[in-house]
């Protein structure tokens, strides 16, 4: 893994072009992004769970997690939820438009450590992208990992993202995708309720399973409790946290939770490292 511009220039982004735009639902869009320069295309690589800072000049900069397979070099995908200025600006981007990219930053999911283990991934809402990258990684290296459950919780049927991907994943060996809708809908015959409801039917070998999760704070809290109830060890639980971020390199202080920096110590944390933190995590 190497970084664009490294240390010498802390803030200068590389230029990259939008290569694809996919409307996932009314408020979420997936953008394909490729670096302009060859050198940058060659040097950029990332781990699932890491993030980049995207700059729109004049508008601002914001962190996003890659949702694509780390295998593709010099190219990555981001799923964006339109929430504020930068994200809104990203919704105005067309194919060929240029953005600034710095990164990748942070610690992702421990894909090395996870080798040989079973995996339960729990995604809520816009928490899906980093986990999607894990799934892509697992599929690309199928032999290295055990059984995989992808549990996805979402409010409404129309909010569902990654429909095609989930279809594709379902075809993979030993990989099960399950979804829970919070609001009942005539088009949906599956599980209705919060995502932890999916835990009830889960039969896992708890000792050999890692639990990964990303989503809104309240969901993370209950998923973590759920993991513990399933018997997954605290040290095998990994959650991805979100805070306001300005620099992405552990300097600006905004993403502090207790003595941790979400950008450099996280965004993916081992549960044991944050369990007894001075400041509330959720």
């Amino acid at each position, binding site marked *: 893994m190497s970084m664009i511009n490294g240390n010498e220039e802390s803030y200068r982004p590389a230029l990259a072009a939008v290569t694809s735009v996919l409307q996932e639902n009314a408020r979420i869009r997936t953008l394909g992004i490729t670096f302009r320069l060859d050198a940058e295309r060659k040097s950029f690589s990332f781990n699932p769970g890491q993030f980049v800072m995207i700059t729109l000049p004049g508008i*601002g900069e914001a962190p996003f997690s890659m949702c694509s397979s780390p295998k593709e070099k010099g190219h990555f995908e981001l799923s964006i939820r339109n929430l504020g200025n930068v994200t809104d600006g990203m919704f105005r981007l067309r194919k060929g438009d240029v953005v600034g990219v710095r990164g990748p930053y942070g610690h992702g999911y421990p894909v090395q450590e996870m080798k040989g283990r079973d995996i339960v991934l729990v995604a809520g809402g816009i928490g899906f992208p980093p986990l999607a990258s894990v799934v892509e990684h697992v599929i690309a290296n199928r032999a290295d990992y055990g059984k995989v459950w992808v549990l996805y919780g979402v409010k409404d049927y129309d909010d569902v993202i990654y429909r095609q991907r989930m279809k594709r994943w379902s075809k993979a060996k030993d990989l099960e995708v399950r979804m829970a809708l919070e609001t009942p809908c005539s088009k949906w015959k599956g599980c209705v309720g919060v995502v932890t409801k999916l835990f009830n039917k889960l039969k896992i070998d708890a000792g050999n399973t890692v639990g990964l999760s990303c989503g809104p704070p309240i969901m993370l809290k209950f998923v973590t409790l759920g993991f513990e109830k399933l018997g997954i060890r605290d040290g095998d639980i990994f959650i991805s946290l979100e805070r306001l971020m300005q620099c992405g390199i552990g300097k600006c202080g905004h993403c502090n939770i207790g003595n941790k920096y979400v950008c450099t110590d996280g965004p993916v944390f081992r549960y044991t490292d944050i369990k007894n933190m001075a400041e509330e995590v959720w």
Partner: protein
Amino acid sequence: MVAVEKKSKPRVGFFGMTSCKGCYFQFLLLGKKLIDIFDSLEIEHFWMLKEDNELGEFDIAIMDGAVSNKDNAEFVRKVREKSRYLIAYGTCACFGGIPALRNDVSGFHEKVYGKPIKLKPLQNVDPLDMHVKVDYHMVGCPVNEQELLNVLRDLLLGKRPGEPDYPVCVDCKKAGIRCLFKDGIPCMGPVTIGGCGAPCPASRSPCDGCRGKLPDANWGSEYDLMLEHGLTKDHIIQKFAKYARIAKPGRVKGK
């Protein structure tokens, strides 16, 4: 979500209701930057500067003054209907300002005209929020002309400008001003929305609170501080209720 569609030149209107018009005068202080504004925006309506003013459609409406009668209320509603983005311009528009002090006083006509005369009963002086949806509150009595420039710039970029939500003390510190409390002068800075650059403390005059109530203000502590620095209870209440008697419903919440 886009506030103003990016296109060649947004159409802008300046409008006025009940106020001292100082905020418009402040606009002229932009000096050379006025030319940039004339160049990058299409000013379609500006009673103070323009001969022909038509009430067409606007991308950005800048509304100065409070609502103090039926005509005002009707007018602001009309402007809102015709505008995509409405800026409440100045403390009068945001909070009612000094004109809203009249809401607290009875027997106005008598006091002003000497003898009781028959006129329609007075309506309260209201901030715009009480009549229409406001997209941006540009506080200040008068406004800070630089803030106007930044807001217009943001809108040109297709960005939603963020309202300041910090106290005047922050401006004070940034300007390296010695806190007036240290010299025994009670100041409204800690409870007042910042963004003015603290011109008053800079000239050793206490902040008077002209930018209105900070959502995050600690009124209890400020009250104690004022008392400690020699103001009477009565006087403190007058100060607290001076520019922003009416809390602004539309502002970001805080504690």
